């Protein structure tokens, strides 16, 4: 059965590599600070579901999507590009184009390190909201905030600078928080991090 997209949910289609984690965490933090819920393939723990089914379900459910294509590059080990992110971006755009009326209200932000790099490998996305974060978490926060503010037309959203400052404070406390919880920062799951961010923000704005 077709699901209505939830206006408060944001599909995060980003690399899960360790080197990308500072930007990934910053995006998830910004989404929660703006009053939305971050969803990604990592938060579905139903092992019986095929990965693509999980992704399709999340795409259908989320009104907004943040797609980072900055990791589309030749893998030195295989000599092939990694194409999961552009494929999920295509699925999101297809859902918006061919879905029921409410699916057509979907909006997406495309992030890359450089604003015009996409022209060399996925020029068909020209005309979409493509923004550059330059590999910087703070810039990613500002881009997510400005886009989500405009796409959702929600009022009273905190500014990008305020979110970035809160994120820096959260990062500074994360070590102590993990120590209190007997956890290592790099062993936190997406679900752990999401709940920690949500609870931390409730008490620390």
């Amino acid at each position, binding site marked *: 059965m077709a699901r209505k997209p939830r206006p*408060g949910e944001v599909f995060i289609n980003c690399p899960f590599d360790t080197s990308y984690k500072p930007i990934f965490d910053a995006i998830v933090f910004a989404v*929660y*600070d*703006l*009053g*939305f*819920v*971050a*969803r990604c393939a990592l*938060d579905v*723990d139903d092992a019986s579901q095929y990965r693509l089914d999980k992704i399709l379900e999340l795409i259908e459910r989320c009104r907004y999507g943040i797609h980072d294509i900055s990791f589309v590059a030749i893998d030195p080990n295989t000599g092939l590009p990694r194409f999961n992110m552009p494929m999920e971006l295509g699925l999101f755009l297809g859902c918006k184009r061919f879905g029921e009326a409410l699916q057509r209200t979907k909006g997406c932000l495309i992030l890359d390190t450089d604003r015009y790099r996409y022209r060399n490998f996925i020029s068909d996305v020209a005309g979409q909201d493509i923004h550059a974060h330059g590999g910087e978490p703070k810039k990613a926060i500002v881009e997510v905030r400005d886009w989500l503010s405009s796409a959702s037309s*929600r009022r*009273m*959203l*905190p500014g990008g*600078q*305020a979110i970035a*400052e*809160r994120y820096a404070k959260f990062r500074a*406390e994360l070590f*102590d*928080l993990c120590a*209190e*919880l007997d*956890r290592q920062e790099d062993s936190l*799951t997406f*679900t*752990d991090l*999401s*709940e*920690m961010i*949500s*609870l*931390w*923000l*409730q*008490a*620390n*704005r």
Partner: protein
Amino acid sequence: MTDKTFHVVPSKEGWAVKKAGKKAATFSSQDKAVKAARKSAKREREAQVVVHAPNGSFVLKEVRGLPVVQKPPQRSSIGTTRISKAISDILKERLEKA
């Protein structure tokens, strides 16, 4: 960036309203402290009131001028109560030092 949260916390005198950078005010009951925190929050453009229980859990009582932080759809296996307590402990320590 200034903190926007008024914390209602248990204290030796009963209950206190604390905010980073401001002198704490004490009250004989939690109700009185929450009322005072709400009154202070109303004077701000952006503010929140968080009530901390003696067991370390906390509840967001009021949000003004800011979006309400949503809960994630899945619960962490660490446990909401444990995470809340750890956040609250670190926060109270920071407020004591301020």
